[in-house]
């Protein structure tokens, strides 16, 4: 099966904004969040999209 437009992971600094049903990475600050997002982007072949300053999602296109 080929997935199109699927949220592979979420990265957040705000524990109250955790989405359910996907892998979530909690981060201390924005810098850590960016580093993790950059790595996940490369690993998962997805794009890191910023929904808010506190929440990034990695999406497979």
């Amino acid at each position: 099966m080929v997935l199109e437009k699927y949220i592979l992971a979420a990265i957040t600094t705000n524990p109250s904004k955790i989405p359910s049903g996907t892998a979530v990475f909690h981060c201390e600050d924005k810098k850590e969040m960016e580093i993790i997002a950059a790595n996940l982007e490369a690993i998962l072949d997805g794009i890191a999209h910023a929904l808010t300053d506190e929440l990034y999602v990695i999406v497979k296109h």
Partner: protein
Amino acid sequence: MSEYTYPILFGLAAGTLTRIYMLRTDYRQYPTYLHGKIIHIALGFIAAGLGTVAIPSIMEEEFTAITFLTLAASQFREVRNMERNTLTELDSYEMVPRGKTYIEGVAIAFESRNYLVIFTSLLSTLGYLVFNIWGGLAAAILAILISKKLMSGGRLKDIVDVEFVEPRFDGAGLYVDNIYIMNIGLPVRQEEVLRYGMGFILKPKNFNARSTIANLGQRQAILHDVSTALGVYRDSGTPALVPLAKRDLDDGRVGVFVLPQEKDINKALKVIQAVPTLENAIRMPSEQQTNGKGS
């Protein structure tokens, strides 16, 4: 040696030469390899043979021989399938794919050029037999000129005005002029995109052009051509660095975002203007009775 030997040889030569003339390797880089060319020259030779024997058959009142031409039709439809299959297979390995519409356009061109060869051979042999070798030569030149006219399609510059616009970020959103392209979250990636990215606005000249450039296949063709001509700053596994073309829903303008290796604005403008308007993308809403002509 019969009275038809020279006219037939002449028609064969004229047809094959037409095929060679039409088989130019240009920026589309296809077919580049020698074997691909040999296949098409050989098929062109067969087409020339079919076209050239038609006239002597009629003169000898061998009308059933003309049914050979129906063979040609199925033979060259196969050429179209062959080209379509090959290009579709290869397309998944392209950095920026051609897209199905572009591939279909190329495949159609390959088929129709064989028919142009048949036409050239037929006309040349007719000219030779009715007049003399000079008559044949004149007919061949005329046919080649007609073929040239028929095989060249329209260019994008005929239907749109192209303008360079520096891409910009509004938060995480990437914009070309006021057209939203995509969301890029990482600041590092945003810097990369701004350093290498170029934006262009295609402004349709009329209502028909608006529908034509809205076609996804046409947009993909633009991205492919720019990426072929100027290189592309991307690799597999970097989906964020992807050239995209998005549409302004209000006025039908298309914002093109590309990441060329060579950031030369004038060259890029020329490349975009020279992108062929794909036959399969052309729409003519103005031909619809209720819309009236023009506008």
